[in-house]
C-alpha cells in the first residue's frame, strides 16, 4: 500500500476530524500538566490546514505535506506549532518529488521528522514528549516490512499510554516535577492520533 496525494489528503482530513472531536480532551490533558491549550492549538491549526488543502491541488504528497507544515508553523504557535511544523516539513523534504510514498519512504520520512523534532526541541526518549510516540513508532516501522498497520496503531497507542508514568523533563510539564507523573502527555496523544489516522488511511487499501 502506498500513500498517494489523495490518501495524504484523506489522512489529514481524518486527523483533523479526530483532533476537532477530541479538542477538549487534549486541552484537559494539557490543563493537568501544562497550560491547557494543546487541544485549542491543534484544533485551530488543523482547521486552517483544512482550509488550505480544500483550495489546492498537489502533484506529490510532499507538496501537500509542505503546505501542512507551513500552516501549522504559522497558525498553531506554542511548542506544538513549530514542532509539528518541523515534523511535517522534514517529511516533505524526505519525500520530495515522489508521486507515491512506499512504506520505506514513509519510514524514512518519520525518521527525518524525528531528527527535526530532536533538533528543534532538544528532547530525548523518555522526556515525556511527543517523541515518546514518534520514536517507538519509527522503531516498529523499521523492524517490520511489510508494515502491519493495525500493529503500528497498537504500538503508537501503547507508547502514548506509557507516557503517563514518565517524569517530564522537557516542555511545560517539567515545571511540575514529580506531579507530572500519572498524567498522559497531551502531545503524545495528538501524535498518537496522527499515526492512528495514518494507519487507518493505509489500511483502507488502494482506492
Amino acid at each position, binding site marked *: 500500500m502506498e500513500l498517494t496525494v489523495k490518501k495524504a489528503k484523506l489522512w489529514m482530513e481524518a486527523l483533523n476530524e479526530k483532533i476537532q472531536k477530541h479538542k*477538549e480532551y487534549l486541552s484537559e490533558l494539557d*490543563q493537568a500538566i501544562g*497550560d491547557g491549550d494543546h487541544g485549542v492549538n491543534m484544533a*485551530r491549526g488543523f482547521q486552517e490546514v483544512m482550509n488550505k488543502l480544500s483550495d489546492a491541488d498537489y502533484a506529490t504528497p510532499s507538496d501537500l505535506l509542505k503546505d501542512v507544515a507551513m500552516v501549522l508553523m504559522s497558525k*498553531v504557535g506554542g511548542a506544538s*506549532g513549530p514542532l509539528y511544523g518541523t515534523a511535517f516539513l522534514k517529511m516533505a523534504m524526505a519525500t520530495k518529488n515522489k508521486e507515491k510514498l512506499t512504506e520505506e519512504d514513509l519510514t524514512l520520512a518519520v525518521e527525518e521528522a524525528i531528527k527535526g523534532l530532536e533538533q528543534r526541541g532538544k528532547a530525548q526518549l523518555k522526556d515525556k514528549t511527543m517523541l515518546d510516540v514518534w520514536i517507538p513508532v519509527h522503531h516498529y516501522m523499521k523492524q517490520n516490512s511489510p508494515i502491519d498497520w493495525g500493529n503500528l496503531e497498537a504500538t503508537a497507542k501503547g507508547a502514548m499510554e506509557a507516557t503517563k508514568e514518565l517524569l517530564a523533563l522537557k516542555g*511545560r510539564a517539567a515545571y511540575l*516535577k514529580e506531579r507530572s507523573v500519572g498524567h498522559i502527555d497531551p502531545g503524545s496523544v495528538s501524535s498518537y492520533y496522527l499515526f492512528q489516522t495514518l494507519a487507518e488511511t493505509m489500511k483502507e487499501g488502494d482506492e
Partner: protein
Amino acid sequence: MKKIINHPERVVTEMLEGLVAAYPNQLKLIDGRAVVTRKNVPVANKVGIISGGGSGHEPAHAGYVGQGMLDAAVAGEVFTSPTPDQILEAIKAVDSGKGVFMVVKNYTGDVMNFDMAAELAEMEGIQVDKVVVNDDVAVEDSTFTTGRRGIAGTILVHKIAGAKAEMGATLADVKAVAEKVVKNVRSMGMAISPCTPPAVGKPSFTLGENEMEIGLGIHGEPGTERKPLATADEIATELTDHIFKDMPLSSGDEVAVMINGLGATPEMELFIVNRKVNQILKEKGIGVYETFVGNFMTSLEMAGCSVTLLKLDDELKDLLAAHANTPAFKK
C-alpha cells in the same frame, strides 16, 4: 466560565483593538498580526526591542510598548506563544538598521518560535539577538530539563534593556545588560485560585477552600507543591526564602522588589505581602532601592502573587531610574 468578552476566539484581537483605541497617539496595531508597536517605529538609530508571548498576561506585553521600554510586542493566543511570521513582522517593523533585540521568556514554545523568526529575519539581512529570561526559582535550573521559566522578572528586563537601547547603545551592549539583569533577577509565585482560558472554558485546576499552590507560573498551570493556605507573612517568607536559596544576598546588597499580582488579587493583599518582604530585607540589611507593587505579569483571573528580587549595581540602578512612558509603566 464567566467573562466579560464577546467570543472566546476573538479575545486577543478585540483586546488589542481596545488597547490601541485607548492610546492612539502612542501605539498602533499591525492589522491581522496581533503586533502592537510604538506609533513612530522604527525609531532612528536605536536598537529595536521586542517581546511577546501568549496573551492572558496583561498588561504584558503590549502595555510595555513605549518610550524607554519596548518598540513592539507580539501577542499569541491565550497562553500560546506567537508564531514566527508574527514575530518576523514585529522585527521588521522596529528595525532601524541597528538591529533588533528580543526579550523571550524561557518556554519551549516561545524560544522555538522567536528563534525561527530570528532566522527568517537574518535571511532578510536584519541583525537579531535575544535574551531568554528564566527568573522563576520554583524549579531548579538544570541542563537535563527545560530549565527555569520566565515570569514577572521579565518586566525588569524590558525596563532596563529598553532604557539602554533608548540611550543609543549597540545591540551587543543591550544584550550584555539584559543578560546582567537575567543573571541577577529571581522570582517565585503562588496562587489561591486558578484561571480559565477563554477557549477552554474550564478552570485550570481546583483548589480546596484552605489550599494554595506554591511555585507556579503564569499559565494557569499547577505549581510544584500544594499546601494548606498560609498567612501573608508566611507566604512572603516562603517565597523570599526560595529566592535567597538560589541567589544569596548579603547585608549591603541593594535590590529592586516587585510584588506582582496574578490578575484577581486585590492590591490590598499585595501591599500586605510587600510589608513583610520589606521587613525581611531590612532585617538582613539588604537595601531596597525601589519597589513595584501591582499587576505586571498576570495569569488571567488567577488570584495569587509572585515576589521578584533584582540585585542591583550602579548601572542597573541608573537604567531602572531612566525615563519610561508606556501605558502600564511610567517613570
